[in-house]
């Protein structure tokens, strides 16, 4: 046990990526050729039970390791893990800081209840659900932990490929139709990502995030323009992932078409976009970046406010509950990015607290949507009168809880997150805009969800015999309740969480310490190297070019 803990202590960051990867490979090797059933349901052979046990155990172990990561990061320690022991900036590093640890914990905390829910029947409606699910976790954890821009692209691809398959899980015409759109859009975005990263490399000569933050501050002239263009191209890519105006149109249809556990897991996918914007635009192109400071602000802030408003308008117009929750995802991303786009540590801290809460609430609401839909006969989750559900009290309370939490009513954490955001904008010139949008969106969210609740629970028709008690098993109900419990826990533990996110924002602002830690083995940021590399070599004690090297320019 002692040896295991010591092993984890040395390799903590990479183990959070390797565990889901090895689990997925094991699950693939075990095969998935039995127990397929069209209706789902808990039946299935011993092999299905084995797969579920292995999958759940791995996710739970991942959760425990993520808690360990947060405990380590909370002390302020920056852990740099060199893959293959190549020192940064020439090798690829994984960096564990407060932000990475928080996002990995959020991923695992959402994944475990979602997996539990999927074991209630969804996982046998298609092949290899568990394996692909763990590949998705590998991509998410890797994207959050990496300290290298190109490695971020690679983990994006891992999580996207897994998400393509998960999105199509269960098949059906609507899923295939939305799947084609989703895949083509994301492949185009990947091409843009590569263009942005390559342009960035050509002017800074580095892909290491810590090093890049220092290099960008020194740019001027043409190189500066190129770097800023690269930053804005990357903003398009991350904006598409995060569902920012005008790039959110794919999201509602895709999330509404995906199966419930997959949609709940996808609540994390938009946060990957938010995370990347924080890493690239808040840190590398943030304050103190010389002439490139605040490159994205003039685009990000209006887009974020507009996303928030358009998202909630979409939710009001939605005709099914799944689409409404999907639009609320868009709206919450707008609120989070508003906090990011103000570029102060206080607003970032509030935005990250709100990220935790909104991801969990949205995931819970997606699972809840399917439970209600299962009990409403042929109307499914359409917002039209239907026979009463079998368990109006239980589901109604859940709806009330989720709605109050999403809209931000006290004393739930949605309220606390929005209050922190409003407070942190107190001295900024854009304060009236932020207050108007955040408060107005909260009111409209409440209106939309109240309308949905009234139609579904009060505006009922006599039973036409199509109502079943489906979806009322304790196993299925447990997952959304866990999410609701988590939001409640976040409200109760608001003070320590806020202290953590405050420290997180401070840590992100301190770019010099970050760079000094990451580049330590290379000798610190001051050691000169030839970057961007153009064929001329500079020796440490001799600034003059040596050798007959020159660039071949006709």
């Amino acid at each position, binding site marked *: 046990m002692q040896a295991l803990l010591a092993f984890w202590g040395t390799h903590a960051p990479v183990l959070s990526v390797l565990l889901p990867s090895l689990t997925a490979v094991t699950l693939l090797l075990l095969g998935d050729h039995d127990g397929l059933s069209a209706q789902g349901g808990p039946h299935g052979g011993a092999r299905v039970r084995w797969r579920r046990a292995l999958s759940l155990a791995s996710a739970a172990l991942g959760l425990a390791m993520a808690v360990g990561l947060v405990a380590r990061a909370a002390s302020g320690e920056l852990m740099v893990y060199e893959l293959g022991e190549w020192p940064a900036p020439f090798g690829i590093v994984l960096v564990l800081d407060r932000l990475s640890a928080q996002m990995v914990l959020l991923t695992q905390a959402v994944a475990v209840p979602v997996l539990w829910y999927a074991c209630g029947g969804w996982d046998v409606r298609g092949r290899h659900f568990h394996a692909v699910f763990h590949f998705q976790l590998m991509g998410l954890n890797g994207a959050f932990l990496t300290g290298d821009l190109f490695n971020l692209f690679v983990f994006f691809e891992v999580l996207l*490929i897994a998400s*393509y398959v998960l999105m199509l899980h269960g098949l059906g015409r609507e899923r*295939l139709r939305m799947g*084609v759109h989703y895949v*083509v859009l994301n*492949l185009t975005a990947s091409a843009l990502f590569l*263009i942005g990263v390559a342009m960035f490399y050509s002017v800074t000569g580095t892909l290491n995030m810590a090093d890049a933050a220092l290099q960008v501050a020194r740019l001027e002239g043409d190189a500066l323009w190129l770097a800023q263009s690269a930053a804005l191209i990357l903003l398009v890519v991350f904006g598409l992932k995060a569902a920012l105006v005008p790039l959110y149109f794919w999201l509602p249809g895709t999330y509404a078409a995906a199966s419930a556990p997959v949609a709940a897991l996808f609540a994390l996918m938009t946060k990957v976009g938010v995370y990347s914007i924080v890493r690239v635009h808040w840190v590398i192109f943030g304050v103190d970046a010389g002439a490139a400071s605040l490159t994205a602000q003039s685009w990000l802030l209006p887009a974020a406010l507009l996303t928030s408003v358009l998202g909630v308008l979409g939710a009001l117009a939605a005709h099914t509950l799944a689409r409404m929750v999907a639009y609320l995802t868009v709206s919450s991303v707008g609120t989070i990015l508003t906090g990011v786009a103000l570029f102060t540590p206080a607003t970032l801290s509030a935005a990250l607290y709100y990220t935790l809460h909104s991801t969990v609430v949205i995931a819970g609401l997606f699972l809840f949507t399917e439970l209600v839909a299962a009990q409403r006969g042929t109307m499914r989750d359409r917002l039209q009168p239907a026979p009463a559900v079998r368990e109006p009290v239980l589901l109604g309370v859940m709806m009330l809880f989720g709605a109050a939490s999403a809209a931000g009513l006290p004393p739930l954490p949605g309220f606390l997150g929005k209050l922190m955001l409003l407070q942190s904008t107190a001295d900024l010139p854009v304060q009236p805009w932020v207050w108007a949008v955040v408060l107005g969106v909260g009111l409209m969210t409440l209106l939309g969800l109240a309308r949905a609740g009234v139609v579904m629970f009060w505006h009922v028709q006599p039973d036409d015999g199509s109502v079943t008690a489906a979806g009322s098993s304790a196993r299925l109900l447990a997952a959304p309740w866990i999410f609701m419990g988590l939001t409640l826990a976040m409200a109760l533990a608001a003070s320590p969480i806020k202290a953590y996110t405050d420290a997180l924002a401070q840590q992100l602002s301190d770019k010099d310490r970050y760079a000094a830690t990451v580049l330590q083995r290379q000798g610190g940021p001051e050691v000169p190297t030839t970057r961007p*590399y153009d064929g001329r070599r500079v020796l440490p004690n001799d600034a003059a070019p040596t050798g007959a090297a020159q*660039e*071949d320019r006709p």
Partner: protein
Amino acid sequence: MSVEFLVATGIGMVTACGVYLLLRGRTFPVVLGLSLLGYAVNVFIFVMGRLWTDAHPILIGNEPVADPLPQALVLTAIVIGFATTGFVVELALRSAHEARSDHVDGAEPGRHSAAAGRDGGVG
């Protein structure tokens, strides 16, 4: 006319063709467009390490070497692009089979509204 100009216009042409095909209504041209875009991006990454002639790919003595990093990046990008193209081809085939149409919206443009109405307005 410099080599840089030739390479840049070449990448621009391929990108333009890729974007044009990407905006078509059938899945086959869209997949071709994605592939073309992928090729353009791969060459773009490659030239972002500057254009070289007569340079070694690895360090030999004190002679100039071509920047090795973009070469490594482009290999990764090619592998990933190959895998995703394979996936999107399979997805397009499956979608065409299920919807009996190779339109990207899963239905022939004229029949779309009727089909949506029959399915109860899903989507």
